[in-house]
């Protein structure tokens, strides 16, 4: 057989064997090419220009390369290990290491660059789809047109040629280091000896769970007011991160075997087939895989957390805009408001107008404060500046002379300070002080947050008291305007037209002037791109980590083939074994997933309110989607095991 034939035969045989390696390659190339094509597409200029997206995209490309390199090297290592026997055989018949390396390189080159071509083709088709998705979620009115980008092609080719060189270098190292005997032994070597669960292992296990629990506990306290100083907050965050990651590592190293061992102990040797295949197999492997699993878990948690947070912001852009802007258009100036309304009338757009008088007063809120750390706080509850309005501006509220309520209280603020149900507040003008009975919080927004000192609550008092305070107001703490005109367009379909008029008048530029539509659509562009990027990486990571776990399972199934043979001889049916394997996969894929989901849940829970107004819906959507996509790999490995079990006897 000539050299060429040898290569071709190997290739043909390997293609069916290593279809997953090919898949990994095609997938990586497609992903990268699609990403780079997007980056070079002229229609992305708007994105790049609008929010300095160029830097984000470039950073994204670098990150993508990092993920791909790690992934491909891992896949390659696994597969060269599986071929070690063949390499040993070639060496045995007298081929030099150099020659073997040459065979491998040529083989790999064809496999690699063949996959690359397919990948580029797939990537190009996918990039149009991605473009459409991006444009859709950003809410830009544009048609997704795409041209084949030569720059993208060159960049992809360069990157993957470099990766090829790196992989080949690793293969060369692998071949160089091995002796014939070793090469034969690699596959038969099991992952470390079966060790019994020791006392130290148990301690490690308990410590791991303890550290995770401590991290979780700390995360719930993070923004509850315990850490108000920036340094303390920063330190607390680092502590959480450290204790959760170390805890996760110890959890895999010790806790899993420890818990499984307790379950086994309970059975006193009488182990069902499901437990034989799942518990006993996993508990000895968990330990040697603990670093890999920790990395997978941490990055999954990161991906799910970031996805949830960006989706929360995206999901809440409209709500956030609604919360900060109570009316469709906010104009803190009567003359300008009149001009705008004239224009609306000219354009035959029906609208309602709402005028609110307001001004700033000194307020003593110390008697209604529930929790507030005065030393580190940004204001002094005994002498705060707050906006006051008349009860006539708030629909359905009529207060008597000695009463007051609070409106415009944002959720974000509630995380830092909470108010008592009742109490007394004092409002002070230039000379007089009025003390009023505080009657509670009214969950509604009357003024845009820009006009209320950046989202500080607003006090509502009786019209008479309001007049009294107004005559006595302290000029030194007043802002530019003391009147707010909110305009609502009656027909929702006409908002866009009204927004056009608003923009033509140039109002959006002025302080305090705002169109809700404009704010929410710019928010959507920013958050949309962020979500797209995070989603892209989340998906990449999901697929790569899923593939890595799947490869691992392929490996394990080969190693456990002997076990299946024995069990089938003992009279267990294929179905019995497959049921056991299902349980095993449930743990194998489930444990990192559940731990990752838990981590991200606590991470998101601790600070989600900075990102938006809705926690549950977006977070659950992200988690369910992630879980579903992730389970595909679990299913794939069950199918693979099915084949192995069938062939085992």
């Amino acid at each position, binding site marked *: 057989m000539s050299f060429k034939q040898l290569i071709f035969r190997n290739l043909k045989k390997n293609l069916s064997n290593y279809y997953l390696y090919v898949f990994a390659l095609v997938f990586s190339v497609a992903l990268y090419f699609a990403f780079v094509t997007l980056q070079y597409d002229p229609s992305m200029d708007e994105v790049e220009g609008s929010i300095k997206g160029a830097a984000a995209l470039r950073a994204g490309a670098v990150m993508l390369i990092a993920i791909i390199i790690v992934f491909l090297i891992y896949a390659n290592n696994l597969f060269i290990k599986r071929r070690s026997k063949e390499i040993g055989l070639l060496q045995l018949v007298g081929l030099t290491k150099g020659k073997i390396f040459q065979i491998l390189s040529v083989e790999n080159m064809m496999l690699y660059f063949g996959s690359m071509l397919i990948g580029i083709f797939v990537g190009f088709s996918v990039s149009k789809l991605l473009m459409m998705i991006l444009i859709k979620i950003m809410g830009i009115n544009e048609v997704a047109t795409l041209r084949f980008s030569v720059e993208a092609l060159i960049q992809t080719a360069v990157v993957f040629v470099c990766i090829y060189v790196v992989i080949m270098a690793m293969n060369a190292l692998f071949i160089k280091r091995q002796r014939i005997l070793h090469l034969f032994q690699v596959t038969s070597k099991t992952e470390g000896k079966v060790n019994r669960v020791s006392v130290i292992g148990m301690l490690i296990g308990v410590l791991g769970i303890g550290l995770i629990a401590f991290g979780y506990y700390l995360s719930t306290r993070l923004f509850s007011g315990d850490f108000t100083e920036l340094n303390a907050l920063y330190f607390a965050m680092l502590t959480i991160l450290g204790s959760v990651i170390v805890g996760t590592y110890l959890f895999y190293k010790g806790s899993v075997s420890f818990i499984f061992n307790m379950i086994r102990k309970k059975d006193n*040797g*009488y182990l069902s*087939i499901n437990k034989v295949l799942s518990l*006993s197999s996993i508990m000895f492997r968990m330990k040697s895989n603990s670093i890999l699993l920790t990395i997978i878990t941490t990055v999954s948690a990161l991906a799910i957390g970031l996805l949830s947070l960006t989706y929360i912001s995206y999901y809440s852009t409209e709500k956030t805009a609604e919360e900060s802007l109570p009316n469709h258009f906010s104009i803190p100036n009567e003359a300008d408001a009149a001009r705008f309304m004239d224009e609306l009338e000219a354009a035959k757009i029906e609208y309602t107008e709402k005028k609110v008088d307001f001004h700033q007063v000194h307020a003593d809120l110390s008697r209604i404060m529930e929790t507030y750390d005065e030393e580190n706080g940004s204001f002094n509850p005994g002498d705060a500046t707050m906006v006051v309005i008349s009860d006539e501006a708030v629909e359905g509220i009529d207060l008597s002379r000695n009463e007051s309520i609070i409106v415009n209280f944002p959720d974000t603020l509630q995380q830092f300070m909470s108010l008592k149900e009742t109490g007394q507040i004092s409002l002070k003008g230039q000379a007089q002080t009025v003390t009023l009975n505080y009657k509670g919080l009214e969950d509604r927004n009357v003024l845009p947050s820009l006009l209320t000192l950046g989202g500080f609550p607003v006090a509502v008092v009786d019209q008479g008291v309001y007049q009294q305070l107004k005559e006595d107001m302290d000029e030194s703490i007043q802002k530019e305007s003391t009147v707010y005109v909110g305009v609502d367009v009656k027909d929702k379909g006409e908002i866009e037209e009204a927004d056009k008029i608003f923009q033509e008048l140039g109002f959006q530029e002025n302080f305090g002037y705002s169109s809700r539509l404009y704010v929410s659509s710019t928010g959507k562009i920013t958050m949309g791109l962020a979500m797209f990027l995070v989603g892209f990486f989340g998906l990449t990571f999901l697929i790569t980590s899923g593939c890595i776990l799947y490869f691992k399972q392929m490996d394990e199934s080969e190693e456990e083939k002997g076990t299946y043979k024995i*069990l089938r*001889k*003992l*009279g267990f*049916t*294929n179905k019995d074994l497959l049921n056991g394997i299902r349980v095993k996969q449930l743990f194998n894929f489930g444990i990192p997933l559940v731990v990752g989901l838990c981590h991200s849940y606590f991470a998101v829970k601790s600070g989600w309110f900075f990102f938006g107004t809705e926690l549950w819906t977006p977070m659950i959507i992200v988690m369910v989607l992630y879980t579903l996509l992730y389970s595909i790999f679990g299913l794939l490995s069950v199918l693979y095991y099915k084949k192995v079990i069938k062939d085992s006897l």
Partner: protein
Amino acid sequence: MSILEARKIHKRYGNKWNKQEVLRGIDIEVEKGEFVGIMGPSGSGKTTLLNVLSSIDKVTNGSIKIEGQEFTKMKEKQLAEFRKNHLGFIFQEYNLLDTLSVKENILLPLTIKKVTKKEAQNKFAAVAKELGILEVKDKYPGEISGGQKQRTSAARAFIHDPSIIFADEPTGALDSKSASDLLNKLGDLNEKRKATIVMVTHDPLAASYCSRVIFIKDGQIFTQLNKGDESRQTFFNDIIKTQGVLGGVQHEL
């Protein structure tokens, strides 16, 4: 009453163009409580015979009955059911699961039969005591000696009281001391439990523990020896003699 009854079994490997007949019409009958040895030179088909008799491999022609049940035409699922109720196995390479303790390994066959926990514990205690592995019950196979491993394997074969036990070169990987130890135990169990054992071996010493030895050559039964009332030593000498006649390779000049 015969436990195992095999009639005219043939086994062919290969495809249309390249056939090889490994078993050529073998008839075997094994009575209840017998300890039968199968001997023969390498390539004579003894392991294939054992695989076929133990339902792990399928015959090309012929019928095999165990306790009157014909299983050559059974489907995979029925076969599994059949194996778990009627058969026990001991192999040269022990075939223990590395991730299970000795006790867990031994109890495996009972878990498929849905025996109650208490009964399982009793059976375990009895069989482990007989085979002398009670003190290593919580160890893993990696931590015990070859002899102990093989006795564990034997305990697993005996624990569910199968109709027949198949042993494939059980002493093949053991030193002489552990080997005779194991064979003595097997002999004891054969007598005490009235267990039926079919053992493939190429070691005449191991075969001398049997009550009957069948010699196979080129896929056919060559001859058989009965121990009868002879001492083990004379039986051993007979076996050696027969083996000498049997030879390994035919010398045609």
